[in-house]
């Protein structure tokens, strides 16, 4: 993720203060997060549902 994208996403998330005071931490966090996303394999089967599911009639 390039610097401009990191800053854009950080500002969109309301992280102006963090960007100003801890720019290295914001960059490191963005790099780490994009690394995790890149390592994840999306399901190939389109009907695979997310877990946990919506379960009406149970719980609170």
């Amino acid at each position, binding site marked *: 993720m390039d610097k401009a994208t990191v800053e854009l996403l950080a500002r969109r998330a*309301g992280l102006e203060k963090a960007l100003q*005071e801890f720019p290295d931490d914001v960059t*490191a966090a963005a790099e780490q*997060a994009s690394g*995790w996303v890149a390592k*994840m394999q999306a399901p190939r089967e389109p009907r695979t*549902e997310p*877990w946990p599911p919506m379960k009406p009639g149970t719980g*609170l």
Partner: protein
Amino acid sequence: MSGLHWLSAAEAAEAIRARKLSPVELTQALLDRIERLDPKLHVFIRLDRDAALEAARGAEAEIAAGRPRGPLHGVPVGIKDIIDVAGLPTTCHSKILIDNIAAADAVCVSRLRGAGAIVLGKLSTHEFAIGGPSFDLPWPPARNPWNTAHHPGGSSSGSGSGVAVGLFPMALGSDTGGSVRNPASACGIVGLKPSYGLVSRRGVFPLSFSLDHVGPLTRTVSDNALMLDAIAGHDPLDPGSAAVPPGHYTAGLERGVRGLRIGFIRHFHETDLPADPEVAAGLENVAATLQKLGADIRDIRLPTLGEFGAVNRVILQSEAWAIHAPWLRERPGDYGQLARRRLLGGAFIGAGDYVQASRRRLEMIAAVENALREVDVLMCASAMDPPSRIEDAAETERTYPRQARTPFNVTGHPALAMMAGLSAAGLPLSVQFVARYFGEGMLFQVARAWERAAGTDERHPPID
């Protein structure tokens, strides 16, 4: 009685019931030990000495009146400081919540008190149960009693260190990516992440709603089962709580492993994240011992640790961001650097990524369920390395993700980590067992067989 600090919870409770040991005598002995050792170990954030002694006197009076509360009557316990204890701060080891006084006990604490346990105080953690050992927080990080230059694991660091060194026989921790099992592994004790939903999370500060578990840390398998007996059970006010009948976890401890099928997930430590040779040898020794005891050891394959880890982190960081975003926007400087870096990550993960991780999670659950149709229990590494040196940030950063615990936060299966032996340097090595949903009884059965064969419950840190 002498050597009270090495009594197990079960032994202490039995002696108290038989009026051979006073809860006041036991509590005072542990408080004295805490006073002596905690300055080296930093286990406690808040020691509640007066309340503990008052509770011990109450417990003594109840025993004298023939009114024992339950199976843990008069036994002291430590509570990780993300778990509410009424009247005490729940700081999460953070400046952010330094003045956050809990109005009520968390359900798990309330259940321990109902069983007769005595709360000693609040224990060190990684900030908000994430990050790592940090030196820029209001309290120092806990240290490993096997060698105080080393990390005790985390995030339930104080829970692991304090149990191992005999400051209390049992503690509560929480586990979102391995935070009960990591300190259990690093400190050579027994740590259980129960099935998702078995223990209420109400009153526990969340890190990641769908990955968080509360679990017991103890020196013996039997105590772990005893503690789970006390804290397990449906809580209608915890949306993730499972409506399953409570187990009687101490009942089948001594059944042994003869005839059990144990699936050994070797690729976790052989190819996914090649383990330190001593760790690998320790795991093979556990497998060989269980085989000698009559178990059928088989190889099992699951998705790789890299895949499990990515799904865990995408879900964890997304859910944690939802919790911490307001503070990260307004007070980023009030977090330590490690937690700030980890928690900011959620701002850079898209909604679609989170949903994809949640969908991949279902496939991973199916993979573990399929494996558990072939075998009764799974066995694998917990940590790939002995505990790192706590002040070597680079070594800690390198070794921290080298673990096989996150898969079972993703899937919610019960998983127990315990000592597999000691390294040449005298640091604990570990093994992990995993069972079917709500199969904690089977986990304890296998763990007890290993404990009995290896005598892991009799090995204590050489600190005094």
